[in-house]
């Protein structure tokens, strides 16, 4: 960008330079920064490289929008009553997950081989469309929910904010890709589900409640489903959808599991509280999980059975798949809780779920 020199001369002679304060240039007023040049590593210049050696405070009484490390402005306006403790929202893998999310963005318009879609038997196509309709709904909620926590997270721990923004982006792409699948092969969107269980995620009043319910429970179920997608996919486009969505979900779960671990390690007195949140979500959603004819979302389960069976005439085969899927979902959920440091959940889980793996 170049500027006309005559005009610049005119401006220079016309404008009176105001008196300057320049106090912001005084380095002694700043938080001390190791005056060394950052060097990008194998993965580029990552947040881990950036923050290596910097202080990471555990608490903050600053309610302004000050980014970590910036000099405080004495007259800065407060923006929100944030969580004052790092533990409330932190996860030790958050920087890594953010960078990975940025690196692994994909496009539903161009990264899915849509040309591999072929006309399917009517019942299978309808089942796919019902399946995609439900997942579009699920991803709507999944996208809305992280956003409501952003303004409650202190900019001191900006990494969590950045990660949640990547999650919102991921969920937008998921709702988009399932909508596209529903409309790309001559079917269309089918019936809205009951949706009651999902509202619990929106209703959370605490970040750890939100993370346990959404990342550790709900997304874990979806992740197991996506990873079992091979049985539901009829072409390369659908396989790619499952693979790419599962990759994104893995990050969200990893955040949730490590946040839960962090909470249990730093605030062990919250263990029972966490069980309460899990009790809450396992109850309503377990109804969905239990059967192909449950009151809440029969259409989703039925769609899975038709897809896995290869058509509605083979719904028995699909039922077996669904039951195996549910069992895997519960087992993987329990495994993640064990990793997070909540192994006793196996024995305290909603009896309906527990019976599911024990019978």
């Amino acid at each position, binding site marked *: 960008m170049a*500027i*006309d020199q005559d005009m610049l001369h005119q401006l*220079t002679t016309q404008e009176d*330079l105001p008196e*300057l304060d320049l106090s*912001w240039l005084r380095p002694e007023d700043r938080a001390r*920064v190791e005056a060394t*040049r*950052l060097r990008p590593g194998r993965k*580029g*210049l990552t947040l881990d490289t*950036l923050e290596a050696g910097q202080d990471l405070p555990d608490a903050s009484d600053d309610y302004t*929008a000050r*980014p970590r490390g*910036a000099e405080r402005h004495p*007259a800065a*306006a407060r*923006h929100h009553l944030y969580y004052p403790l790092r533990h409330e929202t932190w996860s030790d893998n958050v920087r890594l997950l953010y960078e990975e999310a*940025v*690196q692994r963005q994909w*496009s539903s*318009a*161009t990264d899915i081989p*849509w040309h591999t879609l072929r006309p399917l038997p009517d019942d299978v196509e309808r089942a796919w469309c019902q399946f995609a309709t439900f997942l*579009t*709904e699920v991803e*709507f*909620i999944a996208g*809305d929910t*992280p*956003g409501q926590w*952003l303004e409650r997270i202190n900019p001191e721990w*900006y990494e969590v904010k950045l990660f949640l*923004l990547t999650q*919102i982006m991921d*969920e*937008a792409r998921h709702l*988009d890709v399932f909508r*596209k699948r529903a*409309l790309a092969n001559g*079917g*269309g*969107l*089918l*019936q*809205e589900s*009951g949706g009651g269980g999902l509202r619990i995620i*929106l209703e959370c009043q605490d970040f750890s409640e939100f993370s346990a319910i959404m990342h550790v429970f709900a997304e874990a179920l979806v992740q197991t489903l996506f990873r079992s997608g091979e049985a539901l996919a009829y072409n390369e486009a659908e396989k790619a959808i499952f693979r790419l969505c599962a990759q994104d979900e893995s990050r969200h779960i990893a955040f949730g599991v490590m946040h839960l671990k962090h909470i249990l390690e730093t605030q062990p007195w919250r263990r029972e509280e966490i069980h309460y949140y899990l009790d809450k979500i396992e109850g309503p959603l377990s109804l969905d999980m239990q*059967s192909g*004819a449950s009151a809440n979302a029969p*259409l989703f389960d*039925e769609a899975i059975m038709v897809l896995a069976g290869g058509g509605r005439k083979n*719904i*028995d*085969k699909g*039922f*077996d798949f669904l039951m195996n899927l549910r069992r895997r979902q519960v087992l993987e959920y329990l495994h993640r809780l064990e990793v997070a440091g909540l192994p006793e959940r196996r024995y305290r889980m909603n*009896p*309906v779920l527990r*019976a599911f793996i024990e019978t």
Partner: protein
Amino acid sequence: MATVGGARRPPPETLEEIHMSQQTTEVPEELARLAQERDFPLDLVRRALALGFSPGAVRAQLLRGISPQEAEEFLAQQERLRAGEEVEVPEEITQMARKRRWPAGLVQRALRAGFRLSEVRAMLDAGLRFDQAERLVIIRERSQERQREGGEGRQRRTELPWMNVRTEWGVRVRPGKKGLTLGSLNVGTYGDVPDYWPYQTEMPRGAYHNPGAPPMGYTIYEKAELWADNAADLYEEAIQRQWKPATAIPWDDIAALPEVQERALAQLCTYLCQNALVCSDVIGRWLKEMSYGYHEVKVYMATAGFDYARHFDVFRKRAYLNGIGMGRQSPGYYLRVIKDARRWTEAATLLFIFNSSYVLHLCQVGYYAAGSEGDALIFRLAMQDLARQTAYGVKHLQYFLMRKPENREEVHTCLQRAESLFAYEDDKDPTLQEALIVLLGGGLGEEELKRGWALLNYFRRRWLRDYLRRLEAAGLPERRDRLFPYLRQWAPAPAAAR
């Protein structure tokens, strides 16, 4: 297989029928092979099939590793139950069932449904209430019915109501030059974006409403309150143009500027970081307010939030790159105005027209003063993202004003508030302004500062010009005459850049 003339026959009901059936039941070749591989008696397989269990179910048990003893125990139990006999339930289980207040008969029913005694015991151990246990039993009963029923029943059962809901069946969307884009999905009735979205649920536009679905608590149901005709295209463009701060910037090639300029740049980056964080908070707050009838706007907002994340990331990295770090925070007065908005159009106008125009001008300053290709790239990529945001802001305000001309004065009130608080902050806290002067002038010498001041005024005139042009494009040309007085100092048209 237990079939008669190709159709599944009803399961045997008496012991005699069961024995007859066992003699005539054929085991499918594949299943027989599996049993042999697992060293599992074929006779037990035949007995299971004779009871009406499907080959698939038997195969699943074999794969799960059921032992012949377990199978024998289970099949004997099933045969007795089918013959009308009751299975003897150990007293211990009866007691446990009583303790759990299971109704009399539920244990027998569970056994008839195909549960083993050990499984019933596990259900009781797990603490299942009677209603929960009954659910499991019902599922198992249905599964058994499926395995036993004849062709007609199967046909009836597979009539799934959701398969018959109205859709645009047969309308197939094809990928175009830019792939399968969100906008291209708006065909047939899916292209009808209603002026008012009547559903409070999570129903996607174009799906069939479920009257039992609960409300989700959104507050924006009117198209005029959020719509922009370019939202779907901006969403796809944002995804195609996403860049990666860690690897897209040639960090190694960015040499340190002289210390004073490096500090000035770090100060600019600090401001941009703070701005990006607050803006992303605003988006997060409003996303959940937008109903699902207008998903194009919601998904575009997700990309805008992601843009802000990357901006924070890249500007923080740049501030620290050469050992300086964050500068002084801004007091954040005018950013609070954006946060304080009580209507999305208010927030969007301030965020995407007022603020994005302002931040664009800061990026122009950064781009102009860039001492390396890497620095120039950082600001160029950020400007590319901000341009999309202004595009949404302008188109939305335009749509809003066309549908709601009676709200024109309200928009002026919002802008007045933002402009006046910007003036207050700019006057009260010279930090950013001074940093820009130093950066543009190239140092602290008198001539350098004078040059920097002149250039800053140049860029601010450019900013005001662009800001007013955007408002004009949105249908608010009179803002030029109603601009807050403090900003009028930069209102004259700037010199053309080349």
